[in-house]
């Protein structure tokens, strides 16, 4: 009996349950997909995830999402309960036991819950493959396609079992606490108007200014610390460190309060001036009568109705709107950040040579001179090479070594390197030497003081001679070049002495060889592990492959992107669901109002327009600021990007346009569904009350 009644109720209140169903199904789908991606063993054991703290970040994101979803489902459940308090009150009045009423609600709710959960899981499989596709196709080679796993799937089910249980418990407690009188006489829906509409309107304007100011301040702080020549001063750095959390917290608080205050704006727009007049009383004497007229703006084209509807809706849902705006702003920021960091780090990984292997000679053992050649041959077997260079870096001999602590490289090797990096070659005539030196570095003087110095201080005059490996060479000049020097390892970035090829004989390398360096550009990825078997032979080996780094970035950023998208999509979903549920329940109350309008001669078409205007204002307001926040986010992204890369990656601008557009698109779809339902509730029945038997 109870079950039947519950089922019938579900059918009757289908429209509010539709929203609930869509929300639960979508949220389940996203959580299922994200759990399967983020908790998969494949990903968890990836080097990149193990190396960084991503595992922790993933856990935090997943936990936060579960908590927020739990809270929302609880409030949605309580809300559905409140919608029907009168009905439940009547059951109680008719002598039904409280437990039975709770049972009805529980059965009803679980039925819808199970159906939504099932739909969500089915949809989730699709979303999972979409996520997978996104990761594999867009993100690149870093990740193999993942497969569905039982553990994450079960975890999703378990999470939802908990969420449903808590939501039911919560509503059972609420239902038990309610008195019959409360249930039967549905209480008026809160205060009708804010007490100080003008103050709230002014506050809203102030808060808007504050939000803009907050962004400006943060952007300024960021600009100060991320200057063109590196991290700014210590004060700037401190200011940045403080302003980042402070600005974020203040921004979110201001956004929340802004929406809470927005309710005053409509009442303030509505309210005209009061006018008091003296009125003669029939009993003699006079009395002051105050007339409250609407403002001129409100008297135009049915605006009174619109303003009242809006202020009512905003007033009832002020807190919810604030919360939604905060969630949405977080969504936009998270997705902006997740995508931006990927493009910035990937572009930052770009370098002239894909692979660099350095074999440093360890003096105490014999070394295998041919080992690097064998490694080069092996590399060729992995991939076609577009550039290859194997060269020697030697130590200078005394006394030049005492004067200039720089490595020695053959002219042909250095020019090949410069050509490979797309730089201008240098000319070193026979009998001369040339110096290429790197960026400034810190030098510790013997007395312990520190000094910023170039690798070469310019103390040798052109034409002066020095002796190297028994040859007298004239100084031909020096030039600064930081890009290429990091590949001539040995002496680090400080600089190299470039000499004609004939100077570095086999006998010289026999004694003075410090390092052999292999530089490669390959057509296909060759990972550093390919050189593992060439890491012996009396050398200490340094291997760096850009492909390792790209993989690392790809794994990292795909995890970040999936986490951000999960959070963002779920926040979106939840926000839209809340808005729709509220809009729907408002629509129920609006039904009578629109019917009266119709009786007063407002055509159905005009009613639809009025409903649309009301719904659009109500639903677009909380997304307006979050979507607009993409503009300052683009500026922030540009500053960070030009700091790390030296230029603004076009993707940063692309993202900050695409992210809000995509969200707006999703949002508009949802809005269309809500409008359709609200229209059905508010406006259709009027037509239905006039059966068109004759027409």
């Amino acid at each position, binding site marked *: 009996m109870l079950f039947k009644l519950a089922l019938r109720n579900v059918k009757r209140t289908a429209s509010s349950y539709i929203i609930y169903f869509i929300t639960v199904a979508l949220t389940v789908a996203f959580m299922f997909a994200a759990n399967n991606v983020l908790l998969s063993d494949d990903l968890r054991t990836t080097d990149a995830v193990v190396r960084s703290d991503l595992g922790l970040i993933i856990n935090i994101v997943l936990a936060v999402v579960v908590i927020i979803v739990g809270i929302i489902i609880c409030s949605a459940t309580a809300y559905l309960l409140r919608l029907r308090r009168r009905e439940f009150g009547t059951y109680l009045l008719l002598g039904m036991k409280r437990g039975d009423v709770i049972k009805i609600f529980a059965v009803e709710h679980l039925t819808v819950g199970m159906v939504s959960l099932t739909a969500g899981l089915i949809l989730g499989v699709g979303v999972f493959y979409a996520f997978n596709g996104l990761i594999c196709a867009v993100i690149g080679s870093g990740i193999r396609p993942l497969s569905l796993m039982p553990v994450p799937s079960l975890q999703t089910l378990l999470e939802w079992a908990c969420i449903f249980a808590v939501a039911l418990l919560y509503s059972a407690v609420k239902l038990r606490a309610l008195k019959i009188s409360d249930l039967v006489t549905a209480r008026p829906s809160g205060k009708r108007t804010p007490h100080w509409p003008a103050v709230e309107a002014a506050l809203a304007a102030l808060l808007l200014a504050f939000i803009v100011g907050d962004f400006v301040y943060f952007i300024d702080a960021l600009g100060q610390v991320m200057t063109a020549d590196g991290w700014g001063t210590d004060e700037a750095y401190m200011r940045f460190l403080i302003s980042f959390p402070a600005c974020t917290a203040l921004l979110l608080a201001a956004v929340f309060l802004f929406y809470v205050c927005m309710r005053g704006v409509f009442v303030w727009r509505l309210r005209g001036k009061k006018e008091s007049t003296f009125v003669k009383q029939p009993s003699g004497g006079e009395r002051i009568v105050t007339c409250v007229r609407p403002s001129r703006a409100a008297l135009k084209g049915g605006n*009174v109705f619109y303003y009242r509807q809006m202020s009512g809706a905003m007033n009832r849902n002020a807190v919810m709107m604030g919360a939604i705006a905060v969630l949405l702003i977080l969504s936009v920021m998270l997705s902006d950040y997740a995508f931006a960091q990927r493009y910035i780090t990937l572009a930052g990984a770009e370098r002239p040579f894909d692979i660099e292997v350095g074999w440093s000679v360890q003096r105490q053992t014999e070394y295998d001179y041919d080992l690097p050649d064998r490694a080069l041959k092996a590399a060729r077997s992995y991939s076609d090479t577009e550039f290859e260079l194997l060269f020697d870096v030697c130590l200078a001999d005394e006394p030049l070594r005492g004067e200039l602590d720089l490595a020695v490289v053959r002219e042909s090797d250095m020019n090949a390197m410069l050509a490979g990096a797309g730089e201008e070659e240098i000319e070193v005539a026979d009998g001369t030497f040339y110096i290429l030196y790197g960026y400034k570095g810190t030098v510790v003087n013997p007395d312990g003081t520190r000094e910023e110095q170039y690798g070469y201080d310019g103390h040798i005059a052109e034409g002066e001679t020095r002796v190297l490996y028994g040859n007298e060479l004239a100084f031909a000049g020096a030039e600064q070049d930081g890009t290429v020097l990091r590949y001539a390892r040995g002496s680090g970035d400080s600089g190299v002495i470039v000499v004609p090829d004939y100077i570095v004989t086999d006998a010289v390398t026999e004694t003075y060889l410090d390092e052999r360096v292999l530089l490669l550009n390959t057509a296909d990825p060759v990972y550093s592990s390919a050189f593992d078997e060439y890491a012996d032979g009396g050398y200490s080996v340094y291997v760096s492959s850009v492909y390792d780094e790209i993989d690392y970035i790809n794994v990292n950023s795909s995890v970040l992107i999936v986490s951000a998208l999960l959070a963002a999509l779920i926040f979106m979903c939840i926000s839209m669901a809340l808005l729709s549920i509220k809009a729907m329940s408002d629509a129920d109350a609006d039904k009578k109002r629109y019917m009266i*309008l119709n009786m007063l001669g407002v*055509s159905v078409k005009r009613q639809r327009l009025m409903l649309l205007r009301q719904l659009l204002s109500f639903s677009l307001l909380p997304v307006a600021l979050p979507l607009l926040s993409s503009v300052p986010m683009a500026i922030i992204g540009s500053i960070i990007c030009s700091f790390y890369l030296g230029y603004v990656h076009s993707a940063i601008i692309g993202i900050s346009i695409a992210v809000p557009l995509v969200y707006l698109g999703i949002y508009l779809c949802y809005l269309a569904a809500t409008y359709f339902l609200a229209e059905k509730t508010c406006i259709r029945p009027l037509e239905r009350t006039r059966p068109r038997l004759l027409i």
Partner: protein
Amino acid sequence: MNILKLENVVKIYGRGGNATKALDGVSLDVAEGEFVTIMGASGSGKTTLLNLIASIDSVTGGTICVDGRDITRMSEKELADYRGQKIGFVFQDYNLIDTLTVYENVVLPLTLKNVKPEEIVARADDIMKKFGIGELSGKFPDEISGGERQRAACARALISSPALIMADEPTGALDSRNSRNLMELLRMMNKSFGATILTVTHDPVVASYASRVLFLRDGRLFNEIIKGEKTDSGFFREITDVSASAGGQDDAV
């Protein structure tokens, strides 16, 4: 010239075994500038009749012509215009919009028609004073009494000076003084503006303001009294007699 012409109007609610025949072939002519009252027992179809004329409900059969145009064949848009331009309707259950203040409710028909704000204010102040609800302007419908609500509903119906005013038991919730005020006001609208008035009432005193009283029983018109040259008291006595024989007085709640 007949402003209103009903021919064989039938209204059946529901379908099959559940059907209620609320109106069973009502034919009626109302001339321009007439003041007509409809009386009848509860459930006799008075509200149904007014709703049909106001195009809030659609007929099952028959025609209703207003100004020579058949409203049963009008499109939805034309009907809305008709309701907005031609008629003023006072509902039995007031139908004030709960989220609007009394003032806003009263001016609503004018603001929907994009009348100039100055004119709206002038007309609203005038009519609200006439109905004695000026001091309620800032209150909401659920903060005022039933009688005040009724007066607000009347003010809303009359503010746009419609050609055809329909009122469903407009004095139902009013004391005798306010009842008289309202009827005087309707009479004034009738006399000075030539508005045609159609009211429903159970109260013979109220009915005696009319120039013609129609009696409904089980969805049919069964009697009519015309004031003509009759004295007020004679007219009143005739109304009480007929309504007693119709059972209206006894059944009225």
